[in-house]
């Protein structure tokens, strides 16, 4: 019947290729500075995986994934900042024991919503639950009212803009435009050393493969097929007895959680979090990575995040003015010419050739065996 295995052959190949690249080739060939850059690129792959489910499969285009990336990142940053702001470290402040930017803004006590972030387990839970809850509220408000398509995309952009303005405006509570900086240790472990960066890279790769497997699991359940069905014929799904809004909310929440994991890893890898990763521009860039990699392919999203960011770093070093135009042109080119991105090009042009090559060799060897066996009969 229909493929019942978890990964089909080409997906397994894709999984292994990615594993070899990320676990063996890159750590062996790159210095720690470049490897840390790769780690930074990979944080966007988490967002991409979420977008594949939500946008590629479910047809829900969110132009505000930076919100969830940021929420995950800020949750992690709040924990790290509190740890860096021990009474001993901050004894020159007028109120010791609170983050430095609060002291600069004349706050004299830790705000109530910062207090839970003293605890590491609560922080980990918050990284997953805060974005999921936020997505649930947005999703319920929009999808229950049947707001969809372009309107939904515009509203997510507005939310990204609002959150940025809120963070920048509430300097005393959020660190303002500078974000939360000067992060030092995670549960007493210094995250700024090369050794820590090396370990964090592998933690991130493991989490990434965990997310790939989780996304693949969702894709293969009936829920994954309902997402595809919903993208095409929303009414038919509704009149097959499903609450379309609930399925959209689920896809949006799942995408939010994936993005938040990426955001939390970003804070650990880069050592700070700021509103410049929350707003409209980064949110759209995240969609572009996914579109370039292929919005229907989980692996494509990872490759898209890696390749576009690599291009961004190399090109923006030489042509800082031109990079944004290049990115925009890339997006238009992909949407017009290759709607399924790199993975679509691979599946349409490269994969068939490999298959043909393999099958011709196989048939040759079968023919050889028959020829060998014939005289014996």
């Amino acid at each position, binding site marked *: *019947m*229909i493929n019942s295995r978890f990964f089909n052959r080409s997906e397994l190949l894709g999984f292994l290729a990615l594993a070899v690249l990320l676990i063996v080739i890159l750590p062996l060939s790159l210095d720690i500075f470049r490897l840390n850059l790769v780690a930074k690129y990979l944080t966007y792959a988490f967002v991409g995986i979420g977008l594949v489910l939500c946008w590629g499969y479910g047809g829900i285009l969110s132009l505000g994934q930076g919100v969830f990336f940021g929420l995950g990142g800020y949750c992690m940053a709040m924990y790290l900042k509190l740890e860096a702001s021990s009474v001993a470290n901050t004894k020159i402040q007028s109120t010791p024991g609170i983050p430095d930017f609060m002291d600069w803004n004349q706050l004299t006590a830790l705000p109530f919503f910062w207090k839970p972030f003293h605890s590491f387990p609560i922080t980990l839970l918050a990284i997953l639950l805060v974005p999921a809850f936020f997505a649930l509220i947005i999703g319920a408000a929009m999808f229950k009212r049947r707001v969809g398509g372009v309107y939904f995309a515009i509203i997510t952009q507005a939310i990204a803009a609002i959150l940025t303005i809120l963070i920048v405006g509430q300097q005393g509570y959020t660190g303002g435009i500078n974000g939360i900086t000067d992060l030092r240790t995670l549960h007493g472990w210094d995250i700024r050393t090369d050794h820590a960066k090396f370990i964090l890279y592998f933690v991130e790769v493991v989490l990434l493969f965990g997310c790939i497997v989780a996304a693949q699991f*969702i894709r293969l*359940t*009936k*829920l994954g*097929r*309902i997402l*595809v*069905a919903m*993208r*095409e*014929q929303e*009414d*038919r*799904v*509704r*009149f*097959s*007895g*499903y*609450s*379309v809004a*609930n*399925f959209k909310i*689920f896809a949006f929440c799942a995408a939010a959680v994936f993005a938040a994991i990426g955001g939390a890893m970003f804070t650990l890898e880069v050592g700070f979090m700021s509103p410049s990763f929350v707003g409209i521009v980064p949110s759209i860039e995240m969609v572009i990575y996914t579109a370039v990699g292929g919005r229907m392919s989980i692996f494509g999203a990872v490759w898209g995040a890696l390749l576009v960011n690599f291009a961004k770093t190399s090109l923006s070093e030489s042509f800082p003015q031109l990079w944004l135009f290049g990115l925009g042109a890339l997006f238009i080119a992909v949407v017009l010419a290759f709607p399924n991105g790199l993975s679509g090009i691979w599946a349409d042009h490269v994969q068939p050739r490999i298959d043909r090559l393999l099958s011709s060799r196989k048939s040759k060897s079968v023919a050889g065996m028959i020829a060998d066996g014939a005289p014996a009969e």
Partner: protein
Amino acid sequence: MLVGHQPKDFLLAVSGLTVSFDGFKAVNDLSFYVEENEIRVIIGPNGAGKTTVLDLICGKTRATSGSIQFRGQELTKLRENEIVQAGVGRKFQTPSVFEDLTVFENLEISFPRGRTVFGSLTFQRDDTVKQRVEEVAEMIFLKDRLNTYADQLSHGQKQWLEIGMLLIQDPDLLMLDEPVAGMSVSERAKTAELLNRIIKDRSVLVIEHDMKFVEDIAHKVTVLHQGQILSEGTMEHVKNDPKVIEVYLGH
């Protein structure tokens, strides 16, 4: 005629149903009753409000006033998916199937199990599901096309697939909007045969223009005109009604 009957004696009781779009009453104070195992055909000229009536029953359009009772349950207050779960199935005029999924997957989605988010995450494709899908696929002449993507099917086959998707839902009331429109003569005959088989043990509400087809299947015919009932009764009665000849059949 209906005096003394309580609406709950009927499978479907539509009474005083009105919907107005910006003042235009597409359906105007409409009342009709469908019994268990009855096949009712709705005919009428274009714009008479036939499709709107189906839209109102299945919840796609909200009624301005009036009531729709299904087995004593008020449908006008329910959401579309709740109406489906109550036992009402709807086929649309243009075939609406999931083209990026296979015939098997199309039918499987309509199988009435695991309809919540978590139910669909834990849904297992077990033998019951496979058997039922194969059974239905055989009825709709698509047994050897189970692994075909629906976008590869012909127009007629898509119509059958959608009928199959309704069948697997096992509704008590099946609503079909022009099921043979756009079909070839041989497909039409096969569809009539298919419908005759699936209408057993359930009530069916059909909109159709093909008079030959209507005569073949209808128990009772309701003629709509400008959102109101012009005539109702057996095909014989309706055909000889001068009002019907005037506005519809005479043309």
